[in-house]
């Protein structure tokens, strides 16, 4: 495949995205409390460890069977269709939360993860990362196995009753590993 056209550059989402991007039902890929529903939540923190109250996260994931979901309806959920995609803004304490299903492995034996996109005022382009679930398949993962332990752990969620916790750290010693595709 030849890449000939240069990409349109990104720009910060700015302070006023709340006017347009967050929507009712955005963080609820499944209704909370339904069978199999988990809570995935955490904070977004800046380089001083302060919460970021004007960030926006987008979650994209496989279904529990590991299949890539290609169903419309994320913006207008019917309560029954799992679309694999959701959007959540941080609150005044920098906290975000999704109600979703546990992703399955994309390949047999692969480590399952949530794909995450991060936007914020002050962040000039979007960042993307992965949230891995703690488990046995992690040591074989091609990404995780190539990272130093102190960097690797920034990509692994913490199990807790009812779901998982994960902080996005934009800068500093505990900075989350952000990703780009290998050319």
């Amino acid at each position: 495949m030849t890449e000939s056209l240069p990409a349109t550059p990104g720009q910060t989402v700015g302070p006023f995205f709340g006017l347009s991007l967050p929507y009712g039902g955005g963080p609820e890929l499944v209704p909370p409390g339904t069978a199999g529903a988990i809570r995935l939540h955490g904070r977004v923190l800046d380089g001083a460890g302060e919460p970021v109250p004007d960030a926006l996260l987008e979650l994209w994931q496989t279904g529990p069977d590991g299949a890539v979901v290609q169903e419309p309806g994320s913006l207008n959920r019917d309560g029954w269709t799992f679309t694999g995609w959701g959007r959540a803004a941080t609150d005044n304490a920098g906290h975000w939360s999704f109600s979703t299903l546990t992703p399955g492995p994309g390949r047999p034996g692969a480590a399952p993860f949530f794909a995450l996109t991060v936007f914020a005022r002050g962040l000039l382009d979007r960042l993307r990362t992965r949230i891995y679930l703690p488990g046995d398949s992690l040591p074989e993962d091609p990404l995780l196995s190539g990272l130093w332990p102190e960097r690797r752990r920034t990509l692994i969620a913490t199990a807790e009753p009812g779901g998982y916790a994960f902080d996005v750290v934009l800068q500093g010693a505990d900075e989350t590993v952000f990703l780009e595709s290998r050319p």
Partner: protein
Amino acid sequence: MPDNPPLDTQESISAEIASIATAHEKAGPGPLLDYRPYRSSILRHPAFLPVQVEPEEVELAGPVFGARDVDPADADLTAQHPGEPLGERMIVTGRITDGTGRPVAGQLVEVWQANAAGRYAHSRDRHPAPLDPNFTGTGRCLTDADGWYRFVTIKPGPYPWRNHLNAWRPAHIHFSLFGRDFTERVVTQMYFPGDPLLPLDPIFGSIPDTAGQQRLLATYDHGVTRPEWSTGYRWDIVLTESRRTWTES
């Protein structure tokens, strides 16, 4: 606190913009993330370089949006209230493709913007310019089979912000775009040709590559302009992850 320094002058911000542009002449087409002239970025940019990874299958796909997600009326930002909004009515339209020129069809485009006076209908906007009861400034649409999007809106005004003393944002419309896959997701801003505020703006200036900057400028298009009704602007968009996001260590 680095996030709240005493306000600098436009002259000193402009000098920073110029010196960073010279130092990054060979940078990629995207914005620098570590870009001090945009003061809010100081504590919010990663210090580590992004880790290169082979995308997994789920990352080579993206969410699907359809007719049930978007009301066609959402593409007309001038028709969301009983009256007509004030300002220069305009059509903004363009084609979205991937890096090989293939149309990005049936994908979601979301926009938001200030009103003609430069005020957002948002509680955190303290600019003492009037709100327009007939303008909210938010819209969405799906691209057609050939990748085209089209919005009817009014031209947004420039507005002041507190990045530095006498800081003004050039007029712009925020665009949120989904590509063929998850890695191509981008949020950006469309600007207007000839805006005298562009060279002064540290957000636009965060793209050190002037060709990259040009890709964020709409073109006035008289073929899009409608007689006795509205002006027309054209802005085409290319979605590919090869836009590099640069991070300085």
